[in-house]
C-alpha cells in the first residue's frame, strides 16, 4: 500500500508563504478529499505532495523516502499527479494522450513494449474510453476529456493518484461521472486517491476521508461525518449552514443558510 506523508511543510511562491508547518498522513486512506475556501493552500499542498512544488521547508515522504531525493522518474512510477485544467496540444487523440502516461516506463530504445500496450488498453477500458480512443481530445465533452486525463494517470500504473480539482468546469452530471470513476478506481482497483474538491457535498459523498484546510493549516481531518460539522463550517468557510442526512448516501449533507437564514433559522417572533 502506497503511503504519502507531509512533515512540517512550509510552502509558498517567492516570499509569499501559503502553507506553514503542515503535517499530514495520507497512507491507506482510500479516497481523500482536501477541502477548504479559495486561497487556503489546498492546491499548493497537492502540488507539493506531487513534487511539482519544492517546499521552502519540511519534507514529503513517499513510502518513507524523501520525495525530493527519489529520482523524479521513479516517483512517477509510484505516484501520478493530474494538474488542474491540463492543456493538451491541438489534435492529440485520446490514445495518444493515454500513451504519454507510459513515459516513466519508457526510454529512447523502449518506446512501445507489450506492457506499455497492455497498460494503455487497461487504462482506456477502466475509464470507458476504448470506443473514443482515436478521437481528438478537442472533439470530446468536458467529462470525457477529464476521463481521458485520468486515464493517462492510470496508464502510469501507480498506487497513488493525486488529482487537482478533477471536476472544475464540468456540469453536475459530468462531475458525478468523473467522481464515480474515481470511486471505482479505489473500490475495484485498489488505488489510493488524494484530490482537491470544491463541492463539500460531493466530497462528503465520494471521499472516505476529508481534510479541511484554512489559512495553510489543517483545521480538521477524518471521516466526512466527523469533519463536516456546523462549527467547522463556520470556522473554516465562515458559512452558516445546517447539516442534514443525505437521503441517498446516509452521509452528511451541507445546506447553507445564507440569505435564507432570516426566514428559517431565526425562530419566528410572531410579529
Amino acid at each position, binding site marked *: 500500500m502506497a503511503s504519502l506523508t507531509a512533515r512540517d511543510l512550509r510552502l509558498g511562491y517567492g516570499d509569499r508563504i501559503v502553507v506553514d508547518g503542515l503535517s499530514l498522513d495520507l497512507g491507506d486512506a482510500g479516497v481523500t478529499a482536501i477541502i477548504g475556501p479559495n486561497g487556503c493552500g489546498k492546491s499548493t499542498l497537492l502540488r507539493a505532495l506531487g513534487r511539482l512544488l519544492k517546499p521552502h521547508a519540511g519534507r514529503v515522504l513517499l513510502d518513507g523516502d524523501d520525495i525530493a531525493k527519489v529520482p523524479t522518474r521513479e*516517483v*512517477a512510477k509510484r505516484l501520478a499527479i493530474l*494538474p488542474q485544467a*491540463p492543456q493538451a*496540444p491541438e489534435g492529440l487523440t485520446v490514445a495518444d494522450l493515454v500513451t504519454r502516461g507510459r513515459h516513466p516506463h519508457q526510454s*529512447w530504445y523502449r*518506446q*512501445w513494449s507489450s506492457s506499455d500496450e497492455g497498460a494503455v488498453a487497461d487504462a482506456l477500458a477502466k475509464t470507458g474510453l476504448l470506443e473514443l480512443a482515436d478521437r481528438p481530445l478537442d472533439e470530446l465533452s468536458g467529462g470525457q476529456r477529464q476521463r481521458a486525463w485520468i486515464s493517462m494517470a492510470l496508464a502510469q500504473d501507480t498506487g497513488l493518484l493525486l488529482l487537482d480539482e478533477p471536476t472544475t468546469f464540468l456540469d453536475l452530471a459530468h462531475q458525478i461521472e468523473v467522481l464515480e470513476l474515481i470511486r471505482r478506481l479505489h473500490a475495484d482497483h485498489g488505488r489510493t486517491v488524494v484530490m482537491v474538491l470544491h463541492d463539500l457535498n460531493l466530497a462528503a459523498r465520494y471521499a472516505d476521508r476529508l481534510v479541511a484546510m484554512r489559512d495553510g493549516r489543517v483545521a480538521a481531518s477524518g471521516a466526512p461525518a466527523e469533519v463536516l460539522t456546523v462549527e467547522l463550517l463556520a470556522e473554516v468557510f465562515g458559512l452558516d449552514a445546517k447539516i442534514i442526512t443525505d437521503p441517498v448516501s446516509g452521509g452528511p449533507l451541507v445546506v447553507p443558510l445564507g440569505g435564507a437564514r432570516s426566514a428559517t433559522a431565526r425562530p419566528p417572533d410572531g410579529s
Partner: protein
Amino acid sequence: MRSPIPRTAPAGSVRTGGVSLTVRVARVSFRVRPRPITVALAGLGLLALLMALSVGRGDFPIGVGDVFRTLLGGEENRFVVMELRLPRALTGALVGAALGLSGAIAQAVARNPLASPDVLGVTSGASVAVVLVMITGGGYGGVSGLIATLGVPFAGLAGGLVAGIGVYLLAWRHGLDGYRLVLVGIGVTSIAANVKWWLLTIGDVDQASRAMVWITGSLNGRGWEHVRPVALALMLLIPLTLLGAHKLEALRLGDDSARGLGLRVDLARSLLVLAAVALAAVATASAGPVEFVALAAPQIALRLCGSTRPPLVGSLVVGAVLTVGADLIARTAFGGVELPVGVVTAVLGAPFLIYLLVRSRRKAT
C-alpha cells in the same frame, strides 16, 4: 484483465496518421507510423533529383543522368561536378536540414508554430556578429587567410548561440511560455537588425556590400570547406536530438503534466533548445541567414505527415528540399541574374508567415 489495444485506427480517422506498426526486438520496442516514413522517403527522392538538377545547371550544363553517373564513379565531368558544383548543393541540403530540424524542435518546445530560429534571434544574432567581423576587417579576401575561412563561420556560430540563449534566458519566468518566447525573440531580433544596419552604415563600402550578400543568405561559391563543418555538426546534433525526441512528447503536455510524468522538464527543455539553437547557428554560419526555412519546413512536414507536432525527421527532409529547391529557383528563374537563396526563401516564406499569424489569431479568438 487486460484487453488488447486496437492498434490500427478505424477508417476515417486521419488525425493520428492512421495505421501504426509495432516493432519489438528483445528489450527494444518502437511504434512506427508508415505515413511519416513515406513522406521522408519521397522527400529524399525529390531532394536527390533537385540536387542533381542543381549540379547540372551552370555555364556548362550537364544532364541529370550524367550527373548521377559521375556521382556513382564516372570520370566524365568529374572536376565540375565534384569540386565546383556538388559542394554547393550539399551545403544547401545540409543547411536546410539543420534549419528544418531546428525549427521543428523550437516549435514543439514552445508549443507555438511561430517559434523558429528566425524569430528567436539566432539568425539575427549571427548576422550582427558576421557583419561586425566583416566590417572590422575579416571577411573573404580580407586581411588574413585564417580569419577569412574561420572568422565568418565562427562569428556566425558565436553570434547565433549568444542571441539564441539570451532570448531563452530573457523569456524564462518560472517556466517557459511560448508566446513570451516569441515576443522576446521578436524584440531581440529587431534590436539586432538595427545594430546590423548601423554597422553597415558606418562600415567601408566594399566590406559592407560583401556583408550584404552574406546577410541575405547565399550558397554562392561554397566548397568542401563549407560542407565539412556543417556535416560534422549535423552528424553530432541529429542523433542527439532524435534520442531526445520522446521527451518532446511529454513536454508538449505542459510543464506540470510533464513533471508529473517524471520528466526533468527544465533540463530536457534546455538541452532541446540548445540543440535547436546550435543547429540554426551552424546552418547560419555556413550559408548566412536563409530565412523562413526553419519556420515553414516543420509546418509543411506537420501537414504532410498528419501528425500533431512537427515531425523531426520529416522537417529535416522538407527543410533540405526547400533550401535546395529555392537555390535552384534563385539560380535559374531570373535568366542570367543569380539571386542569393535567402531572397527566394524570404519571398516565398513571408506569405507563409502571414498565413500562420492569421491562423493562430483565429484560433486564439
